[in-house]
């Protein structure tokens, strides 16, 4: 259990006697315990804390997972023999609230995470207690990262790029005369990220040529990498729960002047925008600057409303870098700058940067290599 974070939260929510969480990323933040793909699972996890005691509520399917991550407080397992996953989970929540003497007390809850059915079922929490929503409070706390979190995010960024480079190395040499499928290329990204230490892969997407006009395009066939086209990977992966979003654009074969120029302008735009980043700058002002720089460079943007977001224990978290966001950057925030521009055939060009905001500037965490030049997948010999 991360007592410091729990105590800070209790201090923020003055007068609250207990905390109840259901969001896996909030629970990871407060306990340092991670679970297998919890957002995709039918099974819920819960955390109930009060007066220095904490209980994790976990499905029987995940027995051993918390202990393996040094969780030494109580665990209550639920099983589907007590009801559907949601019913059994809510029974366990009610039981735990009574066990920790929180019945009728003031409790802070991550309210947006609870479904209508769960709110009805967890009646001891939602009907018998004086609950209040603490979702915004914890999201704000999570925006600023401590050094350990920055180190994990740095490592995640490096692994993500190494995963891509590993896959590119496999594709090189296959363009002239051999065959390499998009699916195989994308799977190589996953495999190499894993080989370089990834703890898990999130979304995985690759697009080529005209398909690249669409931000996210599921691949369902055995299309081959084709010479003379842009190739774009959009994927997320995590290292010990800390995520990286890695979107990169390459060219298969040798680019025409227009392709190369579009990519260079994109990278020039990113360089100019990075110079604007430091603590104290309003996010909306930063977004306006991005648009101004794009106009000056004659770069056409895919989206003029959003240019990235925070990242941490969630793939997307606060702050959202949107044109209407009145908040300011703070030292310790880690963001992914994701400016998307259009190539000569309206293909989307992306090259993300993971950035730690500092008082007087920024630190680039996605520093495995620079991507200033358009990466060309070339070669005709497969035996290297």
């Amino acid at each position, binding site marked *: 259990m991360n007592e410091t974070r729990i105590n800070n939260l209790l201090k923020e929510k003055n007068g609250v006697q207990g905390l109840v969480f259901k969001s896996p990323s909030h629970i990871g933040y407060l306990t340092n315990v991670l679970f297998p*793909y919890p957002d995709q699972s039918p099974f819920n996890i819960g955390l109930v804390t009060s007066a220095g005691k904490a209980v994790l509520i976990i499905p029987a399917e995940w027995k051993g997972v918390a202990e393996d991550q040094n969780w030494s407080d109580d665990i209550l397992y639920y*099983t589907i023999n007590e*009801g559907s996953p949601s019913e059994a989970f809510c029974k366990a929540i009610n039981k735990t609230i009574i066990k920790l003497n929180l019945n009728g007390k003031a409790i802070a809850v991550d309210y947006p995470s609870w479904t209508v059915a769960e709110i009805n079922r967890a009646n001891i929490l939602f009907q018998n207690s004086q609950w209040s929503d603490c979702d915004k409070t914890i999201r704000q706390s999570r925006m600023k990262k401590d050094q350990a979190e920055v180190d994990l995010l740095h490592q995640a960024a490096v692994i993500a790029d190494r995963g891509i480079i590993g896959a590119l190395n496999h594709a090189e040499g296959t363009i002239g005369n051999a065959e390499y499928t998009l699916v*195989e290329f994308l799977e190589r990204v996953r495999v190499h990220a894993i080989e370089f230490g990834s703890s898990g892969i999130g979304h995985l997407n690759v697009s080529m040529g005209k398909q690249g006009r669409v931000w996210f395009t599921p691949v369902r066939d055995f299309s081959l990498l084709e010479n003379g086209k842009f190739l774009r990977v959009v994927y997320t992966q995590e290292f010990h729960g800390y995520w990286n979003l890695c979107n990169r654009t390459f060219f298969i074969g040798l680019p025409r002047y227009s392709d190369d120029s579009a990519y260079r302008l994109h990278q020039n735009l990113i360089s100019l925008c990075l110079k604007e980043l430091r603590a104290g700058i309003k996010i909306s002002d930063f977004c306006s600057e991005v648009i101004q720089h794009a106009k000056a460079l004659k770069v056409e943007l895919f989206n003029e409303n959003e240019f990235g977001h925070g990242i941490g224990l969630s793939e997307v978290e606060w702050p959202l870098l949107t044109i209407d966001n009145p908040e300011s950057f703070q030292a310790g925030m880690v963001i992914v700058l994701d400016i998307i521009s259009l190539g000569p055939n309206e293909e989307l060009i992306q090259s993300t940067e993971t950035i730690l905001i500092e008082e007087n500037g920024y630190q680039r965490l996605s520093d495995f290599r620079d991507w200033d030049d358009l990466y060309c997948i070339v070669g005709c010999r497969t035996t290297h």
Partner: protein
Amino acid sequence: MPINKIKERISAILNENDDHLDALIITDDANLTYVTGVQLQLLASIPYLSVILFWSKNNRTLICPSALASTYTSQGWKENLIIYAECADPQGAAIAHLLQMIQTEFKGRGNLGYIGESLSGKTLSQLTEALPNSNFMDISDSWIRLREIKTEEEIDNLSEAAKLTDHGIAGAIHHLSTLQSKTEKFLTEDIRVHSLERGIHIGGYDAVSQAVPGEKADRLWPNAPAFGIGTGFTYNQDTFVRLEMLGIYNNYRSNDSRILYTGVLNQMQMDFFSKIKDLRTYACSVINPGIAASKVYENILSKSKELGINVLNELGFGHGIGIEPVEPPYISAADDGIIAENMTLILKFAFRYLHGEILVTKDTLIVKPDGCQIVGRYQNWDIPYQTAYTF
């Protein structure tokens, strides 16, 4: 686009309700996939990509952020699309469009159905506050039933998913021999890659595999916090390995688990797996339309005791499968839902073997008018796959 039959069935839900629903509101990733036919696994992890589907008799509108608009249209969504600009409060923006639509179409009134099992309580509060004259109705029960009973096309997709995944596992384990081990990570990757080679669609998140050997198999998810990744651990001779893969095919899932033995099974082991086979045969004989899922559970539990198998009944004996790898009904003590024709189920036996290892077998079943049928088996798994000594 949604599978045609599903479209018809959703329209039927609007009409079948006693109070006559005027429209449905759908907000979660699985149900959006079910209705739109567009699978975006990332919606479950990234709630800021707020997508809402509004489905009335005359109006089917998807509300989505601008980044996703081309994804939906390019993947075949041909109905209305309302695109909102990315902003600091995307959920608020999406709900504002929904409210406006309800005001326009029903003048702020009407019977509006939602799925309480997946709709956020906060979202419902916002809607009820803004629309005091509308009547909001939780249609979870009929919606779950709708998804439990599969169309012919869904069954085809689920059968294909099961077949490709099972073939993928079989393909991967042929690269392992008794005397030439490989790492857990390597075999984990091989299962995924072989499934992809056979046509399973690439997916992220929980579309993963595991190849967990004896001493580590005392839990279902070892190697925390790196789940479904594997380690540099190499397999010893005479070890059971639990092989698992969750695949995706045309948005429909496979959920497969098989057992491998690095060596030759002795007679005692053969006898044990013969009992597992008997248990499976028995289970298939009791899974029939009309029986309650809880009764199936009771019967299997009783039979396992009779056979002397140490089953992990706390995990139940299976569940439905469809858009999600685990969905209702649950073959558990608590689910009194009635098994019906055209349900697709995973029949699961998890049991502890001699050294505490948890071994799991899963088969995909289709419920037929007069029983059930196992689908997707690439080979006979009644006894575990035994490796060859060399290649």
